[in-house]
């Protein structure tokens, strides 16, 4: 405990500088805005702002980018409640009861409980992150290359398993990410691979152009196809503070959602699932399950807490192991690497200021979000009214400038454009780009671990199954890969019996 207090003090020294407070504020403001606006996700926004952070201190960059992430989780609920369109994938469930409450004239308490629930969950989530991350990284220091290789394979398998569409397609996306990450110079021998004599490819494909293309440009292309204006809740929003009955109904759901969200947030790709599980759990244990879907406040409190807590949980594997649990964390990992930091179990030990500064800034950010967001709901409603025809030229412009400014290279912008078209086709063919991005960032680390393990063992592949942690990770990954086949066979047998 004294260790934690000492570290918190160090974190305060880092987070409470004028510059870092400002970056935290900018981050949560942008995060809330992109959360409110449907059509721009945190992945696109973070990749657009990544080049802006190059000149900053690493800790300031992470504070701002993290602020965008958890800020977007707050903002996403506003659109779900007022427009019945989820601002973020994690706020899909909030639409069910949130919009119903708004239709019944209770938009204020719905927005209020979403904000308070998010605040409580965010704060408790950070506390658990603070307690868990350090011991986990201490354990992870004992990991060797085989354990890291197997752990990354497990992470990519879980992301593919939890993908919304076909698991085979998600696995293909993950493998394609690894394939793309190998373009450029080989890190061990210095040989050039698949560069076709092009100078621009010597360092490989840039992270920012690929992400901006797949998320930013492809998103705009998809949205331009859709026409029609949003139907926004027009009545004046009154009484944002929930009353005693609202609190009584919600407080249990908030704490259950917090715990559930945090631990699911640690698992790769499970952040979105946490909101659905929280909603189902609340409905299952409720004395009045028939009220769910008709505007019950627990239906907002549980999932909203779960998604904010999951965003704190997602930082655990990033800081403790250097393994991202979703595409946003993969971008933060990329940002750490761009700033010359080596993500992994030694990150917290070698850069305590970065970790504790980020943790403290997340506390501060959560308070800022609560204080700012409730009075600013009117402003966010106005932001929602900005027509997409005005927004999309600016998104295209930011993507272009963001890609160009990294190396002052038109090749990077053309890469972004090409990946925009590829991302659009992926959407049409129902391929999810998130596993690709994760694998693209993890690819070089994965290859390094694999080759180091094989060098260690003299080319013997049994090194991966002779070590217990590595064996367990690969076993779980294999089980997850085989599970859909088993489930399909079982359902066929049952349908025949019926």
């Amino acid at each position, binding site marked *: 405990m004294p260790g934690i207090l000492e570290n918190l003090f160090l974190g305060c020294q880092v987070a409470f500088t004028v510059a870092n407070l400002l970056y935290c504020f900018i981050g949560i403001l942008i995060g809330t805005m992109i959360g409110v606006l449907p059509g721009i996700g945190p992945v696109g926004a973070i990749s657009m702002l990544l*080049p*802006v952070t190059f*000149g900053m201190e690493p800790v300031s960059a992470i504070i701002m980018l993290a602020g965008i992430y958890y800020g977007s989780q707050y903002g996403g609920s506003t659109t779900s409640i007022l427009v019945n369109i989820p601002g973020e994938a994690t706020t899909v469930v909030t639409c069910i009861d949130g919009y119903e409450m708004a239709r019944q004239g209770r938009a204020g308490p719905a927005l209020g409980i979403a904000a308070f629930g998010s605040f409580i969950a965010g704060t408790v989530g950070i506390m658990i992150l603070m307690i868990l991350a350090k011991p986990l990284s201490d354990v992870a220091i004992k990991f060797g290359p085989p354990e890291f290789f197997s752990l990354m394979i497990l992470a990519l398998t879980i992301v593919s398993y939890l993908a919304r569409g*076909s698991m*085979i*397609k998600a*696995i*293909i996306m993950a*493998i*394609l990410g*690894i*394939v793309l990450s*190998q373009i450029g110079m*080989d890190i*061990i*021998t210095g*040989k050039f*691979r*698949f560069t076709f004599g092009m100078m621009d490819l010597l360092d490989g494909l840039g992270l920012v152009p690929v992400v901006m293309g797949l998320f930013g*440009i492809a998103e*705009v*292309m998809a949205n*331009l*196809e*859709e*026409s029609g204006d949003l139907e926004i809740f027009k009545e004046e929003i009154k009484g944002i503070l929930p009353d005693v009955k609202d609190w009584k109904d919600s407080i249990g759901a908030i704490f259950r959602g917090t715990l559930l969200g945090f631990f699911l947030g640690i698992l790769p790709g499970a952040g979105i699932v946490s909101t659905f599980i929280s909603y189902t759990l609340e409905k299952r244990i409720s004395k009045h399950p028939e009220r769910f879907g008709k505007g019950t406040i627990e239906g907002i409190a549980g999932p909203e807490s779960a998604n904010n807590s999951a965003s704190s949980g997602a930082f655990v594997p990033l800081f403790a192991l250097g393994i991202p649990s979703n595409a946003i964390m993969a971008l933060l990992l990329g940002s750490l690497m761009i700033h010359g930091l080596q993500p992994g179990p030694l990150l917290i030990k070698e850069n305590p200021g970065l970790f504790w500064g980020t943790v403290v800034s997340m506390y501060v950010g959560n308070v800022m979000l609560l204080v700012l967001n409730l009075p600013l709901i009117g402003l966010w409603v106005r932001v929602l009214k900005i027509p997409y*025809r*005005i927004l*999309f*030229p*600016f998104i*295209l*412009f930011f993507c*272009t*400038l963001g890609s*160009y*400014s990294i190396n*002052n290279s*038109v090749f990077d*912008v*053309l890469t972004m*454009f090409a990946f*925009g*078209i590829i991302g659009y086709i992926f959407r*049409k*063919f*129902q*391929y999810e780009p998130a596993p690709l991005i994760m694998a693209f960032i993890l690819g070089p680390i994965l*290859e390094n671990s*694999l*080759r180091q393990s*094989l*060098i260690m063992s*003299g*080319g013997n592949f049994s090194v991966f199954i002779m070590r217990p942690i590595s064996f367990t990770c690969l076993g779980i990954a294999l089980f997850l890969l085989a599970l859909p086949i088993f489930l399909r066979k079982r359902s066929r047998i049952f349908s025949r019996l019926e």
Partner: protein
Amino acid sequence: MERSLRKSDRISSLIWLIVGISFCAGSIPLKLWDFQKPGPGFMPFLSGALLGLFGLILFFSSTAAESAKGEKARGKGILIKKSKRRLVLSFSILFGYILLFEPLGFFFSTLLFFFFLFKLTDPKRWLTPFFSSGLAVIVSYLIFSVWLKVSLPSGILKF
């Protein structure tokens, strides 16, 4: 819709197979194995082979699913024709912007980019897109070049 998705799955699976095989072929000259340790071509070969393998799995699973259903319904096609014109024009403008970005310089290429995009969304007016694009380019120049010190191309017009 489902039928056309399965057709697109088969097309994409063949693409993955080709990409996978190409990657395997390209990685062989890089040296796959170098005396008890993997060479620079090992990982590309492995990932290329896995990509091809999963491409095949996707191909057979989509074929099997369709023959199991035996459906004869005609799909509408994956690429539904909605507001395609706006999409194609917007992206042609973006492509033109990328190509002119360095030769024309930031200021004029961005002015033209915003002007054409605003004009596309508001075709009847001339003055509004003109002034809006002018304002957008000045504000973005001040933010990126003056404040954030992003190095922007000045182009042949030296501005």
